[in-house]
């Protein structure tokens, strides 16, 4: 009996050691991949940060309509954030490459699937970034144009345009990520239509007093213009 127990223990230990030994090359490869990715990430972070700082990326963002970042100890917090995000992506890629080195079917499948998904993730990020920049730019254009046309609901129009573009960008990004496609399509239709309807109602019904006041003012203006406006600009 005791002999059988000893034999079973020896077999289990041998089996464990054999399995562990078979995992060792993969483990070493994983550690190596992570180390290399750390080094590459560190170099990339420094490089990207230097390039973005050189091209005044933070200031450009403010010009494109993004709110200025809150007070920070770092002079270029957004450039730092972008550089670190890229570094993190590199480390993640290194980790996945390391995982793929294990001679295990599910591990390599997981790594391959994740790696295959990265282009979609990057695509979605680009869509969100472009959408966000466009939304802010268009919102600002609409705001200035509407104020110069003396529209009392200028800000509402501007916010509406911003929401429309952002909703469109988010829907496109989710589509690119292949997340709940049918729900996204439905939700996008409802949201987009909802925003347009809200704007139409707000401008058409909610501001009917303003509109009638504005029309009244325009009518007065027309009658004034027939008298003659003495101002000459150029």
């Amino acid at each position, binding site marked *: 009996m005791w002999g059988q127990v000893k034999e079973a223990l020896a077999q289990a230990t041998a089996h464990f050691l054999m399995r562990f030994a078979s995992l060792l090359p993969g483990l070493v490869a994983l550690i190596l991949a992570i180390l290399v990715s750390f080094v590459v990430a560190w170099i990339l972070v420094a490089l990207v940060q230097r390039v973005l700082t050189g091209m005044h990326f933070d200031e450009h963002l*403010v*010009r494109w*309509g993004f709110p200025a970042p809150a007070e920070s100890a770092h002079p270029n917090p957004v450039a730092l954030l972008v550089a670190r995000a890229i570094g993190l992506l590199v480390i993640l890629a290194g980790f996945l490459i390391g995982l793929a080195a294990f001679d295990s079917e599910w591990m390599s499948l997981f790594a391959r699937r994740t790696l295959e998904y990265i282009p979609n993730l990057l695509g979605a990020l680009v869509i969100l970034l472009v959408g966000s920049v466009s939304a802010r*730019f268009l919102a*600002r*254009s609409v*705001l*200035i*144009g509407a*104020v*110069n*046309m*003396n529209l*009392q609901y*200028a*800000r509402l129009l*501007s916010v509406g345009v911003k929401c429309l573009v952002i909703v469109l960008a988010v829907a496109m990004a989710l589509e690119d990520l292949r997340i709940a496609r049918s729900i996204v399509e439905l939700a996008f239709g409802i949201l987009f239509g909802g925003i347009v309807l809200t704007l139409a109602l707000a401008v058409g019904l909610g501001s009917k007093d303003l509109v009638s006041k504005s029309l009244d*003012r325009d009518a007065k*203006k027309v009658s*004034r213009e027939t008298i*003659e*406006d*003495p*101002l*000459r*600009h*150029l």
Partner: protein
Amino acid sequence: MTTDAIPEQAQGKTEPQVDAVDMVVGILAELDAKDLAGICDSLRTLPDSLRIAVLHEDPAAKSGETLQKTEPTKGASVFFMPSLLAKSDPGSEPVSNFSARYQSVLAAGEKLQAQACYVIASKLMPASPGWLGQFTQPLLEHNFDLVVPHYARHKFDGLLNSSILSPLTRCLYGKRINNPIGPDIGVSQRLFQKVRSRAKNAGSGPGAHPAMLVAPTALTENMQVCEVNVGARVYPPPDWANISSVLSQILSPIFIDMERNAAFWQRVRGSVSIPCSGDSVDIGDDTNATVDIQQMVEKFQLANRDLREIWGIVLPPATMFELGKLARLPPDRFAMPDELWVRIVFDFALAHRLRTISLDHLLGSMTPLYLAWLASYAREVQAASAWAADRRLEKLALAYEAGKPYLVSRWRWPDRFNP
């Protein structure tokens, strides 16, 4: 009034083949046959030896008018060359359209090796036929390089010029030019060659607008500039719907020129008058003119509510505070201090240079501020005489000069000097 001055080319006949002329006169104003004949008569009173090419869209083809022709009289030889003038494009923006036609007049001057180029872009009141003779004299006889008009003006005429263009040119370049961008203008060969070269270097952007380039080029090249007193311009009625676009198209080239000439104007202090010929024309006061101040104030108040976020990127906190105070004033007490307006113009010029925000947004957001200045000025001079209004504008010009150290400091140290 004779119509013999209308040469036969104007009646649809072929253009003369000419290689060189002494003077090119580009007529961009919409003139009827009588006014055109008046201009030709004036040109024919110039010395016999002069050969003058007149660039004007064929009036016969345009209006269907038939011009009678009599025997030519003695005087300078005047002939029409309509093909050298860029065609008016009603579809394009008025300022761009004007710029293209202006450019074509200077190009014709260069092509025909003219000693001087004139652009006639206005109809004047009272229509004095002799004004063109007076206008051509400084270039032909006294070797000036640039002659600009000093229009007799009502107190509400040419306000974009009075509020920004003229005082800014005066403060930057130290010469008191009342109408730096004309639009009627005379330039010597030396000057139009320089202007053409600068316009070519500026490419096709707004910085290539020749009308905006003429005065700064003459002043930075230390050329001789003079003014001629003329009658009042007949202005087109204001296009309130497009005021923002006009402001943008005029100010953008001015601000670009500020960038180009920064090394020059930072050394200039104070200002001096320039020679002025001719008697000033009295056109009387328009004390009955009434302006709708309330509407302009309301537009400014709306902008102060909605555009503060954008103004805050361009203007320093002290200016934002002043604007907030101004927005709370009722129309009957609405008064924008000159110092505030001057700083706003300087800060927008600086933001244009730094490209702080998109240039369209920047200049678009300046429109309500211009309207605020307009409302303040109109309220102040509504009941005043033309003379008092001129004094008021002189005070504004002095405020520009007094504010120049602020501009220089902001320009040199945009990050460090932020009051």
